[in-house]
């Protein structure tokens, strides 16, 4: 399997397992996950994300066969264009992760548009991270609503040639984005927070087509068994199961 959405690093609000490369690799081995697309979790809150992206690069450079890095950018912070260039030139990164909600901008603002234009110019895959975990459990001083689906639908429609992975979105959110978007060929979604209703994976495949659905865990925030069991239990064809588990991610990320 290929995990399309994972992190290394720590989360400020609770203790987690699988935060280091060694621990994450061990868990991946347990579940038969060959590769994972990873970002640095601390970059949700760091201001200087280049420091975090450098930490990520250093942490995984000896495991390039298992980890594909996704650098994090905040287009509201000065110098993001130069940081982007360094991530590409010095770290060889080619997947961009955005957290519009935690970083305080909307995708349809000048900042949002500029970073998506940059991604398009470089031919990146953009991971649009909708949330991190259930908003009902957030720290009382850090309540961050998920990125609105309508905003994502507008962005993917405005950039029909830019490839998007919708990450950590729930079932209804994904189907909403899909139906609201005027272009859908450039949309994929991973299933880490698709945790219902029953039959959710089958229904996603019916709505989007199995070619657009990817295995993802949101490690270390969620237990990866949720996504693994969802695929195992889904009543889909063997061919579609392989696409979701691996084939679609291999195609999207060029693995």
């Amino acid at each position: 399997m290929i995990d399309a959405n994972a992190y290394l690093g720590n989360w400020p609000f609770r203790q987690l397992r699988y935060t280091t490369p060694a621990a994450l690799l061990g868990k991946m081995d347990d579940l038969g996950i060959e590769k994972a697309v990873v970002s640095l979790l601390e970059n949700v809150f760091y201001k200087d994300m280049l420091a975090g992206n450098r930490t990520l690069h250093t942490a995984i450079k000896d495991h390039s066969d298992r980890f594909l890095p996704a650098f994090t950018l905040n287009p509201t912070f000065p110098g993001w264009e130069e940081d982007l260039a360094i991530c590409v030139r010095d770290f060889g990164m080619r997947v961009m992760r955005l957290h519009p909600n935690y970083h305080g901008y909307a995708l349809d603002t000048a900042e949002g548009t500029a970073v998506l234009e940059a991604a398009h110019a470089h031919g990146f895959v953009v991971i649009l991270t909708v949330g991190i975990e259930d908003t009902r459990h957030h720290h009382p001083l850090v309540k961050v609503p998920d990125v609105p689906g309508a905003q994502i639908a507008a962005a993917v429609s405005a950039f029909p040639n830019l490839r998007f992975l919708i990450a950590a979105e729930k079932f209804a959110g994904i189907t909403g984005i899909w139906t609201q978007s005027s272009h859908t060929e450039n949309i994929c979604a991973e299933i880490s927070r698709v945790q219902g209703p029953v039959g959710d994976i089958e229904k996603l495949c019916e709505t989007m087509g199995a070619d657009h659905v990817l295995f993802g865990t949101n490690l270390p925030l969620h237990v990866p068994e949720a996504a693994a069991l969802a695929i195992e239990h889904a009543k889909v064809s063997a061919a579609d199961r392989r696409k979701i588990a691996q084939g679609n991610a291999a195609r999207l990320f060029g693995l």
Partner: protein
Amino acid sequence: MIIDVHVHTRLGPDPYGFQYLLEQAAELDVTLCVNSLSPEGAAGMPYDPSEEEVQQCNDWTAELAVANPDRIIPMWYLNPAHEDFACRELEQRVAACSGLQGVKLWVAVRCNDPRLDPIMRLCAEHKLPVLQHTWFKVTGNLPGESTPMDLRELALRHPDVSFFWGHSGGDYEYGAKCARGLPNVYMDLGGGEAMNGYVDLLVEYETADHIVFGSDAPGRSLSSQLAKVYGAHIDDEEREKILYRNAQALFARQETTTGAGS
């Protein structure tokens, strides 16, 4: 074998896939403890259902239990605001049901309300486990929605009643601390996302003897909720206790006193 203490159904059309759930439960050998909070024609689940709506919900639950005697345990839905009617409704359901059964309470009133006391005395008499919804939401609770601290009050007031602690409090870290030290509560894993460390934390504070599997299906998938257990760092004995042995032991108390489930 798995016992799922937290399953919903609704009358009328089946947009949430109860039939799918029944088929999957058969494949995975899951016994479903089913309640209905959704009367026919309602837009959703009324927060304060009428007497007629409660009866309609329970009629549907009874019908499903009769049709699936080896798969479904009915959990009778009550509105404590109905006071005497709620007790009569429960007594009639218990008298008419020859199998295992329990009670489900949702958000009609907060569960530390004294109007629950007569219902709890009946539950103690008939050894009916009570699935009480709880949630502590940083985004704000519904009117009448019980917090884990409300359930702590109720559990202390009724030590002879066994409680399935709905959603483990929603925010399971908050719920786990509220439930600590209570011998008559069982943390229900149903609902919410499969957070890394969820079950590990509950085992640390409540021990595996006080956790039961619940899914909150069909709104939640069985896969995601089972993952909480299979992804935890616990041993096989603890896993079996959570998945079925604890709930099985609670329902077995009914069998020894009433012959239910024979």
